[in-house]
């Protein structure tokens, strides 16, 4: 039995990300980190693999830079890591990412659970989570804040989901695709021994031929990236005693018609 999770390397959250004059995205000398939302999925994969007596595998799709996220995952305690790279996946759109990811899950044996973090912070979407579930034909449970029970013998799982209006308890058959929220756990820091082990690990790289998958026709293209237009506002400082500041601010807000 195994649990599979996906991750990727993204610029450090505090980094200033910009589009250079060549149109390429840079984040200066800042390092990459594990996509911040994925830390919760990685932690949960470790915990639940132990819980069901299985193995936790982490996959990244993309070029060499994503090996950093995989090494961090191994250092945390994931059992195995795989990277998928292929010229046909550069650049990658939602459909081809999902097709490659689904093929990778199918290549692994006896997968009970596919875990994702809430979203990929670089591409700014969670669409791949859903698309993989559909390509695999697995049910999907998003916004999971607690895994309440997994019964591998009966092939069922019960989870708590945090939705806008409250908390929902849902059951599903296994295998299932789950995306987790920040509330689900407290991700561990890699141990010193873990980091040493991970730094020595050789991460296998699979091509699309290894996966035996052909990609769907590309339907979406990114034409360009751009920096945010500068906020064309000049700050007006409102001085005085608190009561004066309050009165002047309300005057301005009424003029702005935002009240």
């Amino acid at each position, binding site marked *: 039995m195994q649990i599979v999770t996906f991750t990727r390397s993204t610029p450090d959250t505090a980094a200033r990300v910009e589009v250079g004059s060549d149109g390429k995205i840079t984040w200066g000398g800042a390092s990459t980190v594990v996509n911040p939302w994925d830390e919760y999925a990685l932690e949960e994969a470790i915990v639940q693999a132990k819980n069901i007596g299985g193995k936790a595998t982490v996959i990244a799709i993309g070029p060499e830079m994503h090996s950093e996220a995989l090494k961090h995952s191994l250092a945390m305690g994931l059992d195995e890591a795989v990277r998928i790279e292929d010229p046909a996946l550069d650049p990658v759109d939602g459909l081809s990412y999902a097709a490659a990811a689904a093929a990778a899950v199918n290549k692994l044996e006896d997968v009970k659970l596919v875990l994702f973090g809430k979203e990929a912070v670089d591409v700014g979407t969670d669409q791949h989570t859903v698309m993989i579930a559909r390509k695999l034909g697995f049910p999907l449970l998003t916004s999971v804040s607690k895994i309440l029970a997994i019964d591998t013998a009966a092939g069922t799982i019960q989870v708590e989901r945090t939705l806008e209006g409250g908390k929902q308890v849902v059951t599903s058959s296994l295998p299932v695709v789950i995306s987790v929220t920040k*509330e689900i756990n407290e991700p561990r820091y890699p141990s010193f021994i873990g980091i040493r082990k991970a730094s020595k690990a050789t991460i296998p790289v699979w091509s699309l031929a290894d996966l035996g998958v052909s990609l769907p026709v590309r339907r979406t293209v990114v034409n360009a990236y751009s920096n945010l237009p500068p906020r064309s506002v000049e700050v007006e400082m409102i001085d005085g005693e608190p009561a004066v500041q309050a009165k002047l601010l309300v005057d301005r807000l009424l003029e702005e018609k935002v009240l």
Partner: protein
Amino acid sequence: MTVLVWIETEGGKAKPTSWEAVGAGKLIADGFGVGVTAVVLGENAAGVAQEALKFGASSALACDDPTLTTYRFEAYAPILSKLVADRSPKALVAVATAAGRELAAAVAADTDSAILSEVVELSVADGQVVATRPVYAGKLLSQAASTGEGTVCVTIRARAFKAPAEGAASGSVETIPAVLAEDSIRTKVVSFEAEAGTVNLTDAAIIISGGRGMANNPKDAPAGVENAEIWKAQDAFANVLQPLADVLGGAIGASRAAVDAGYISYAHQVGQTGKTVSPDLYIACAISGAIQHQAGMRTSKVIVAINKDAEAPIFKMARYGLVGDVFQIVPALTAELKARLGK
């Protein structure tokens, strides 16, 4: 040929932001010279479909079935996928709520269609849908487009597109069948516990946010309180910021620092690892304005910053800056607004 728009409902009523999807759908539909067809699933589908005709849809499809009463991804997705497969619309549009995002992605996967997620601008050029969408947690914009023929699945950020004005209804409502029977649905809802005082930050027109400085509350924590700092900050959110939010009809937001320190629940977090918001008015109280926070609120129309540190980065993005003590300014502001707005 048409543009399909999914109207999200709650308790048999359209969510107010759903009409923004009709507005965005019309932008695409006009580009192709076609009409907008609203799709309503679940409780009171026919009633809401009728209402959609007043908000600019030229026709509507309704499906009310016991499997659809409350939203369930597994039951809803195949209905939309079948509509797209059968009718080859130019686009399927939904608001980028949790449900809208997962439905649009499911349809794209099921039908191998283009997908443009969480877009803030839309146009049609040379027969393709072109969109602007925030990436890298709102630090950059991406200009993306569909290619080839076929349907484009689009989700729009709440408050980024205008809802059409309500007018007279024209067109008709067609009833469609559900796709899956309960027996073949693998996910079952066991229970739902509604939470009082939940926030819907993404829909809010006014947001009052608090940062780490909320712990500087001058009020003394009662004796016996385990953690005075957390008590002070929680008291400040409840008794300093909430009254201001109440008089403005706004929602309460928070910085990551405040959430991580345990001052307020994660549901309130604005920023890179929280919610992205774009209200008409954003009042940042004792928030320094780290890059992570800016990423979540920089598209607010008017930003007011109240901070005791005149050098705080938040002042660089604010329209109005007030240097001073939040615990004096906010109550003064609340009192002033009560008097001026007659509340």
